[in-house]
């Protein structure tokens, strides 16, 4: 008994005040950023759909059902069926997986590479920075979609190549933003101190500078996810992204959706709404994150 009592005393029970603090922070965030909170809800719903698609979707998203071609929305098929008789709702639920996979992977990789390159460019400065920034200028001269199309034309179509195609144009954009923050950090006394202590360049960049530019980095990631989802949908719509029969929102907008736009508009409407909501959600949430992390905006 004594032992049990001792154990109980040694276990760190959740601090009620910490939990309450967390909830109060959430409430504060919602109060300060109601639109950001709405965006967060959209993102959470997307995550739930993607994670639990096997349980949520009433039908196999790739199974053809020729006895149910072009069925309008009904109790059986909430969002109707497409030109193969596939359930549009099930395809949208599974399509969230594709959107999030492409969105997050390409944003995270693109922003991470951009982070290291941006900080490195600012840290070394001088001719290295000058040359590197001119190279970034060349990449940034191309609009996102054009750059992605160029990459797709080199690597070919498919989910993996779409991720590469979206990642590459993100790198210079993130590097440019991060560099501007890193330029200020480079002049800080603690960086001089690190140099004076003889720390290696990589240690100074990765341990002392990168953690201090995390705010713009996180803001860039949230902004990129929405852009990546839109870009993936655009590439798939053009037939250059993921391929049939993979459920993907952009892909659902092409082919049958165009051909049957008049007689079966639900084939195009629901994936269109899904794309809009996802991009809108990430955009609102990204703005809110920026407001929260930017001290100037926070003080306002």
């Amino acid at each position: 008994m004594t032992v049990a009592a001792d154990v109980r005393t040694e276990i760190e029970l959740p601090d009620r005040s910490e939990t309450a603090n967390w909830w109060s922070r959430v409430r504060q965030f919602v109060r300060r950023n109601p639109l950001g909170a709405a965006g967060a809800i959209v993102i959470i719903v997307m995550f739930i759909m993607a994670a639990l698609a096997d349980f949520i979707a009433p039908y196999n998203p790739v199974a053809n059902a020729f006895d149910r071609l072009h069925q309008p929305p009904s109790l059986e098929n909430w969002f109707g069926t497409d030109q193969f008789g596939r359930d549009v709702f099930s395809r949208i639920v599974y399509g969230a997986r594709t959107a999030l996979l492409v969105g997050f992977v390409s944003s995270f990789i693109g922003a991470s590479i951009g982070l290291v390159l941006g900080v490195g460019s600012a840290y070394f400065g001088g001719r290295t920075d000058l040359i590197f920034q001119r190279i970034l200028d060349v990449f940034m001269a191309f609009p996102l979609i054009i750059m992605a199309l160029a990459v797709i034309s080199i690597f070919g179509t498919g989910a993996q190549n779409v991720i590469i195609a979206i990642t590459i144009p993100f790198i210079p954009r993130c590097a440019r933003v991060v560099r501007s923050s890193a330029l200020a950090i480079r002049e800080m006394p603690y960086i001089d101190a690190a140099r004076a202590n003889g720390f290696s360049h990589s240690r100074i960049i990765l341990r002392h500078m990168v953690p201090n530019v995390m705010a713009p980095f996180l803001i860039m990631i949230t902004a990129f996810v929405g852009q990546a989802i839109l870009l993936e949908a655009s590439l798939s719509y053009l037939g250059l992204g993921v391929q049939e029969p993979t459920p993907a929102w952009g892909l659902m907008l092409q082919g049958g959706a165009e051909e049957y736009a008049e007689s079966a508009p639900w084939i195009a409407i629901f994936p269109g709404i899904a794309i809009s909501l996802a991009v809108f959600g990430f955009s609102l949430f990204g703005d809110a994150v920026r407001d929260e992390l930017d001290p100037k905006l926070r003080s306002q």
Partner: protein
Amino acid sequence: MRLTQLMRPAFALAAAAVVAVGFGVPPAKAAPKKGGVMTFVVPDEPPSWDGHRETTFALIHPFAPFYSLLIKVNPENPSSPTDFVCDLCTEMPKPADGGKTYTFKLRQGVKFHDGTPLTAHDVVASFKKIISPPKGVTSARVAYFVMVDSVSAPDNHTVVFKLKYPSGAFIPALATPYNFIYSKAKLDADIRWYEKNVMGSGPFKFVAREAGAFVKGERNKDFYVKDRPYLDGFEAIFSSKQALRVQAIRGDRAAIEFRGFPPKSRDDLVKALGKDITVQESPWNCVLLFTPNSKKKPFDDVRVRRALTLAVDRWGGSKHLSQIAIVKPVGGVSYPDHPLAPKKAELEQIAGFWPDINKSRAEAKRLLKEAGQENLKFTLINRAIDQPYTIVGTWLIDQWRQIGVTVDQKMDPTGPFYAKLRSSDFDVTMDFNCQSVINPLLDIGKFLSADKGNESYGGYTDRTLDKMFDDMNRTGDEAEQKKLMLAFEKRVLDEQAHSFVTLWWNRIIPHRSYVKGWKVSPSHYLNQDLANVWLDK
């Protein structure tokens, strides 16, 4: 000619099936008007501009108007598999030497578009490139001319073909619309010159080409047929999206698409445009295939290949897919309804055509298990064209899913798609056999061994099959030909499971009613020089 007799019923069927619906005036009735530029849409761009090398409509539709042929199908009767007329020649020759020699006399005064005279030597050089191309040069129609022994030009206006044996398949092969007559001088300078350049003697002269956008042609004022062409020019606009092509016709930005639309698009256009749209329909000498790469594991195992075809419900597919795609008839490797083609009862004995799909799929699963491929996964490469490639490819993947096979689809534009086929860089590919004149004895050349066939991509060598093809073409006995054809079908589709038929195509051409002088045929390759087309505006 035995083949001619064989083709008569097919001709009757084809002619009967070619229907013109809608509200347009039959093209031949009104007096043709001169002038105007016709715009048409083309769903794809060709890998190269060389007709001898390519097998796609994407080449024929924009480039055929620039070239002449030795002979061609009668543009007034393009559905006939036996009605041929001279293009560059002056008179259809009678075979001599027991059917082994054909002598063609050529028109005099014909000029290439650069002003140089076209002679028999140009014709000979062109056919030599087609029949026996030098190493490193691709000809898609070598197997069409297996019966040809030699081609020569005794003088500037005479071409002589000598055959190894009499063959009813020779004249239809000669009328193939890809047999463009090229300039010998150009070929001598660079045999691959025509892959990237245009210079013919056809009714239209090349003006410009913008990659991904258009090809333009203008009237050849020196064309050798008096008062032709009627049009001042044409513009072929490339658009890979079917919805855009349909809208182009609907909005009168294009007058016609020569390949074909699915039933839904036809109905939409008729509903929207009423008397301003005319619809011509025809059965189609075109079939969508899928071909495993026999050089690659596990597709080197005939059990795995057979399982893939056994999984496919063609009878159900015909019923359902015909609602959304340009496919319908179920058939084997030879044109359905042709006297040489297997009857339904015969077809139902072949793997993949069994009437009981459940039994068929159970056998497919058993074969995969036996081959140790129960969880087979592979990539299907496909051509990035909506109709019917994407639709049928997506349907096939669902058919294979039902025997536990997981398939990714990779769509490629025509150029990269062909590059992969030609370099055997695939697991399983969508494939097609689209021919011009209905001529099953040669059309099935697609299925021969890799070193013998016309664009045979399966990577297999099957000399028994090659011999059957040869025997079929040499015998004049119809019963023997039919027997050999059935054995050929069984060997390709079932016993050796080299390559597989999905469904045959069904051609529907809705076009602006002011387009006159063009008649649909059972091939989207035939009758495309536009010399007789005019605009009733």
